[in-house]
């Protein structure tokens, strides 16, 4: 098992948006998808998932509909809205800038300053 990192505040929303941008998912599926795309490096607290999903739905970034799940049960599936897709793009760019800045900062050597 890979070593698990703590989730930065606010990153859960971004991960959820990314996860559902890859295809519509039910709540448990979102959890599995995040685990899959992070290689199990980030641990999502089960209880934190749903409030985040409802918050994003409330903001109009994702939308939901009821359908059949793999175990043939009624399940609620989430997918990205147009507003969500726009937001994901903005957040991704912002995140990349942040990572680059952090990486540059952390790789700085005494000679460079």
């Amino acid at each position: 098992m890979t070593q698990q990192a703590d989730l930065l505040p606010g990153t859960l929303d971004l991960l959820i948006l990314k996860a559902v941008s890859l295809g519509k998912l039910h709540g448990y599926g979102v959890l599995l998808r995040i685990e899959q795309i992070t290689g199990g490096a980030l641990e999502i607290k089960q209880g934190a998932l749903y409030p985040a999903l409802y918050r994003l739905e409330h903001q109009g970034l994702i939308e939901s509909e009821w359908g059949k799940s793999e175990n043939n049960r009624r399940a609620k599936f989430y997918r990205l809205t147009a507003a969500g897709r726009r937001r994901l793009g903005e957040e991704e760019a912002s995140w990349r800038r942040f990572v680059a800045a952090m990486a540059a900062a952390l790789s700085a050597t005494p000679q460079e300053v």
Partner: protein
Amino acid sequence: MSLIPPAMTPSGIAARLRSLWRGMRRREAIEAEMREEFQHHLELLTEDLMRREGLDREEAYRRARLEFGHVEGHLEDARASRGLRGFDKIAFSWLDVKLGLRMLARHPGLTLVSTFALAVGIPVGLAPSHFVDGLMAPLPVPEGQQIRILRLWSTAQGQAVSPTTHDYEIWRMSLSTFEEIAAFRQTAYNLDADAGGSTVVRGAEVSASAFAVLRVAPLLGRPILPADEVPGEADVAVIGYDLWQSRFGGDPNIVGRSIRVGGVYRTVVGVMPKGFRFPMQELLWTPLRVAPGRAPESAEPVQIFGRLAEGVDDARASAEFAAVAERSAVPGRDRHLRPQVRPFAYILLPGLSGGLKSSPEFLASQSLALMVLLVACINVAMLVFARTATRGNELAVRTALGASRTRIVTQVFVECLVLTILASGAGLLLLASLPDLILRVVPGTWAAALPYWIRWEVGPTTAIRALALACVGAGVAGVVPALRFTGMQVQSTIQRTRAGRTGVRFGGLPGFLIAVDVAVAVGAVGFAMTASDLVQRAGSATAAVGIPADEYLAASIRLPSPIDPASGAGPEGKRRTRMAGIQDELVRRLREDPQVRGVAVADVLPRMDHPTHRIEVEGVEVPDDHGGFTTRVARVAVDFFDSMAQPILAGRGFNAGDIGEAGSAVIVNTTFVERVLGGEPAIGRRIRFVPRGDGEPGPWKEIVGVVGHLGMRLISPENDQGVYLPVAPGELETVRLAIHVRGDPLGFVPRLQEVAAEVAPDLIVSVAGPLDDIYEGDWYLILALSLGAGLLVAILLALAASGVYAIMSFAVSARTTEIGIRSALGATRRDLVVLVARRAVTQIAVGVLIGMPLAALFLVNESGSRYAGAGKTLVVGILVMAAVALAACTGPTLRALRIDPNVALKGEG
């Protein structure tokens, strides 16, 4: 790094509101869905654990529950993330509504008084806006809200003046912001059907473009076409559905039939659909014909309207219109004309430049109406306050048991909301039936004068306003008391309640409100006294007017205008000559009739409200800031007083030498002599008319005679100082006739129409009815007004009394223990009565003191300083309020006296 901050874009806000609305509306369903979703999650997790770690189902489920965490907690978090947690606290249930209804049933007196107060207050508060909105409704034609009138506002005269056919031609060619422009002129026609004699029909001359602007196609045939506008072409008419049905029996072959309109045969070319009238109530349309080559100065007045082009707003249309109107300006015409683009309903408001809602009259009536509503709300608030006070114990215990403050305030709010919504419903019913009630009271001719587009149904806007008022009312009446109660220390409330008191004291505010109540009531009594005085004096005025009004038939005659558009030069001169001939001939033939005792001719008849003018009297200092004396004026035929059998009290009557340019004789009435001339001899004195704006006064005129009261002003006859001017035949456009008939005046109507038709077939004869009916029309209005005022006063008194009662009753119950102790210590009944009544008497005395100037204000305003009954009115006002206060105090005082000292001391009273 932003990391999903709240997206406050418009679409983000909309999404939030939608989600919030869903969450509130489908609260139970959404919660069930969340539980189902969590359950599904748990099952999948369980299956995963079984597969991954080989656990049995029971153990896997236990682990899954452990990992997932507390379901109720997640539910709570989920609600919070939907923004619904705030609503949970104030969410109310049916139980609150039921409680509210139960409270209404348990306090029937309070329910009745409050519902009554609000059911009257709410429609009164809504009425001004409601009626104005109804009046200003767009024409009920396709896209009627796009129709505007184009008018010229004279800043010098302070009113709109009619544009002319000259303006119409230029505007129509030049304005591109309007899809189409049309002109019309209202008129009346004598319509001769095959049988049944002629009747007067209201109609309009319209340009062919009018039907295009209105976008209404005829039911049968065709509308008026541009070819019909050419002078000399065949005369045509388009008729309305109702006219088609009533006068032509719905004849399917009406198109092509020839009918006689104003003595001219016209071919009916079309029938308009049911319900269509234009511009107000008209049902007959003829082409508006403009004689070619007419000089701009002598162009005829018309009304001009148009339909805004697609996508054009008022600002753009106004800007273009201003530029174009400058080009059509005629030298010599009023230089202070401002072109205006206004909604069509403004044809009713030639005297208003801005909107009706910004007029001072509207603002005054709206604030008065809101004042009534405010008084109603304050009183209901006091009643609820007192009711809530008796529940201090219950509320305190509930708070102690853990009910949140929000919860309790919500409950009291909902209880009040039940009351105010009930009252709003009753109020809306009242408002909906008000137009019918009013139309039943006012004479039928008034109702017929109202334009057909008026919509006075209670629509969604009014209902929403009423609902908003109900919520505000419930807020004031419910939330404020509840906040005060719940804001106190629970323990002390319980202790105080256990000790036989209610939990709160009122403080100064309700005491002040009682004083205001009483003040308003005293003022209202003053107003009612003035109104009733007015009615009495108007009643006594009947006796003062020396005419047997029930023996006279009032009618008016006029010629349709223009009499002959093709004739060209000098239409006014020609009209006068013709009218003079007609008038002389008609009066002569009527006087020959054995049924007729006399015929009097004037521009306005006795008992009608005469127009006022300002005059100067030679040698009399003009009273400052009035700029002259205001006097009533009638223009009468030289034999008017003889025909009315009125003696000349001093000087002489008019004679033929008095008419025309050179004539300078006037006759005044006795009131004029008393009030304007101070009782000095009138004959030989000179007066002249002063224009209202800036301008030269008219020529001096000499008083040659004095006559008695003939009823120039119905209300307050002492103000009817009047001047009579002689008028030559043909000078008046509309001539009024008072025909003194032997027997029933109405029985003479067919004969009058017959004679008129013989004299001139196109003469328009309107019968107003017996002269005393004209009087009664105004009389009903006064009666309705004073009844309304009386009702308002009764409401205010009832409200003041109930407010006083509620506070008194509360004050006594709050002092039960004190009264018990006093009684046990030997206080007499008299002492206790004084104790209880002292507070009420003080508050009422303060109220009366504040109210007296208010009442005096009414009295001075209404009648001027000469009114002597002011003192009497105030005494009556004070007595009425004292009686109300006595009645309000009696119940609580008797209750206080019945208290057994032992019971009171044990704290169970």
